[in-house]
């Protein structure tokens, strides 16, 4: 297996518009939160170095770049993902109901070799809103869904307050690392037209 490939872990975050995908990424990577919601413009992917058992890995977290608004993410977005994060807003029932669609869309588009064991992580975001009073999806309900889909790890988060975000992404990274990609297509190494830029590049967010 290519060493370069194993150094880089691709994580994608799926979920309805407005559930806080970009905010979750930003909180984890930059420890920043903006109250001003704008449908995502300018977010591409963020990278963060993570360490496991004395080895450094680059976690590359891909935003939907707004292409999820009309379910128009292309197959290229899904490809080669090592972990898929499904995010919803605990205050919006529809965003929870749609998790199933996002999961299925991922399995169709990414077509992982072992769909039963592909690592997903579910995040219930915005638990801070209105002190939890506007919440419509219970933790029990969310956990039951996760259990029914092969025990998907579940985290309740607040991107705004930074609550549980670090722990959630630690789990995401660990699961991404466990995912064994199909070996054959990684040999020989791909040609790096940007002279190694792909690995080191970290992308800014304009919003």
């Amino acid at each position: 297996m290519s060493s370069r490939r194993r150094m880089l872990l691709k994580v994608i975050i799926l979920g309805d518009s407005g559930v806080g995908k970009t905010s979750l990424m930003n909180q984890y990577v930059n420890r920043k939160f903006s109250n001003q919601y704008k449908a995502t413009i300018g977010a591409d992917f963020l990278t963060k170095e993570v360490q496991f058992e004395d080895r450094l890995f680059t976690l590359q977290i891909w935003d939907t770049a707004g292409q999820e608004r009309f379910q128009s993410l292309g197959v290229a977005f899904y490809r080669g993902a090592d972990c898929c994060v499904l995010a919803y807003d605990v205050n919006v029932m529809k965003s929870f109901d749609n998790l199933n669609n996002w999961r299925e869309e991922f399995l169709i588009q990414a077509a992982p070799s072992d769909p039963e064991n592909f690592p997903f992580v579910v995040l219930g975001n915005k638990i801070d809103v209105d002190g939890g009073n506007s919440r419509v999806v219970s933790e029990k309900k969310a956990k039951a869904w996760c259990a029914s889909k092969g025990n998907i790890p579940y985290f309740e988060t607040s991107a705004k307050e930074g609550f549980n975000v670090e722990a959630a992404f630690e789990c995401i990274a660990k699961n991404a690392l466990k995912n064994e990609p199909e070996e054959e297509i990684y040999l020989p190494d791909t040609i790096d037209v940007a002279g190694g830029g792909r690995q080191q590049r970290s992308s800014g967010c304009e919003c």
Partner: protein
Amino acid sequence: MTESASYPPIDPTTFDLILVGTGLPESVIAAAASAAGKTVLHLDPNSFYGSHFSSLPLDELTSFLTSHSTTSTSSSHPHLPPSTAIDGEDYISVDLETRPVYSDLDISSHSSEPLEHSRKFNLDPAGPRVLFCADSAIDLMLKSGTSQYIEFKGVDASLVCDSDGKLSTVPDSRAAIFKDRTLGLTEKNQLMRFFKLVQEHLASDGDERGDNARISEEDLQSPFVEFLKKMRLPPKIKSIILYAIAMADYDQDDVEVCKDVLKTKDGIDRLALYQSSVSRFSNAPGALIYPMYGQGELPQGFCRRAAVKGCLYVLRMPVTALLMEKSSGHYKGVRLASGQDLFSRQLVLDPSFVVSLPLASSSPDFLQEISLDFRLKSAQGKVARGICIARSSLKPDVSNLLVVYPPRSLYPEQATSIRVLQIGSNLAVCPSGMFVLYLSALCDDADQGKKLLHAAMNALFTPDVSGNPENSSSVQCENTEEVKSTLLWSALYMQELNMASFESISFTPMPDGNLNYNGVLDATMKLFKKMYPDEEYFPETTSPENSEDDEGISLES
């Protein structure tokens, strides 16, 4: 397409630019316009990105080619006369329909195996297509930030068929010339001398003094084939340079009937492109590279760049009509299949669309004028394309390779080069144990096109494909190391060629007959500059991540 009904209304409703179709030219324009700060809406009736530049699973490729072919009723209102409707006070709506851009589609399946793995294929309707490592397309991807989404692997070998029907490796470097056992010592010296002269010419380019190293202006304007003769290069070498390096399409030896005589100047440029491609990336085995998962990754990369810059994407959304201002006949907007009307200053359509206008007698005067404007400018000739799925590689030890059959190499009347690109599973375009071969050749009509494709297929595949037991799937050819493979599945078709056009409604070009993207991307850049004469085409520092990226430039060795 019923899914379109479930979308919420698109908001906002007014844009600077609306594009329909996500082929490479539309996607590049969407990315460039978004980078220039325009508000852009990018629509596609399909559920996938890429239109005629996509990479598709086997079953989807079949339905895509079928739905855009002459034999099918692809238009949404096949038998109704085109209609216009007066809408409210200000606008008149004119039906937007699709027209066939492929014809003579011929699909043969000799094994059920490929279809059983349909989704493991990523097949290019516009193949064969590769990038030269030194192509401007690579610079465009770096400049626009698209390169970070796409990975490439090299085409391992480049072969050319000689007059005896034998395939030999294209010697593309000094080392390769020395190693080549098929070249005699005299030939090697001639080739070395020629390459040296070309290098000296290129090195002295811009040097005003006309010293000995330079090739004279008279020679530069003469046919390349004459210059090669003057350099006393033997026929075999001439053929390699003309057809496997400079990628000439038409028979250059017959200058009277040749439709596109390559001038020495252009021939030298193409040699230079080839030479600088060979040395550009340290781990590329040759001059050519191909994207992982197929060429459909390119439009998707540009679309993602556009999205990152704020472009709004809606797939599975057909446009049913265009809205024209009643008083002037000017384009104003589009009507979606969902019934929503959206407005924009400019509109770009992919070349399979046609604005269908009512009969002159029943239409307002201005419609007769725009009917002239909105007609797509078509180019002469067609390109014959073939996609073949085979059991084994043409060369046992190599997975990805290019084969060129120069004019007259397969049969005396062969008027154009046939190019074959074989791509294997290590580029994630097919299941392991299979190979995809793309064929193309320019032609005047379908008969000629099919004959060209069949000639190459006869040379590539074993004739008997029915009832072969699996274990005898390949047959060793006499006196060559190439292996004739078993053909499992094939699709042959003629594709129309057209030029990009700029009017109040612009059309993008179809994939051209070339091996690389330069022609298509040149036309795209020109279209963008006509649409936005004051805007820069991908400004250097368009985003923060680009400014951090100072490694992207230090590529060339």
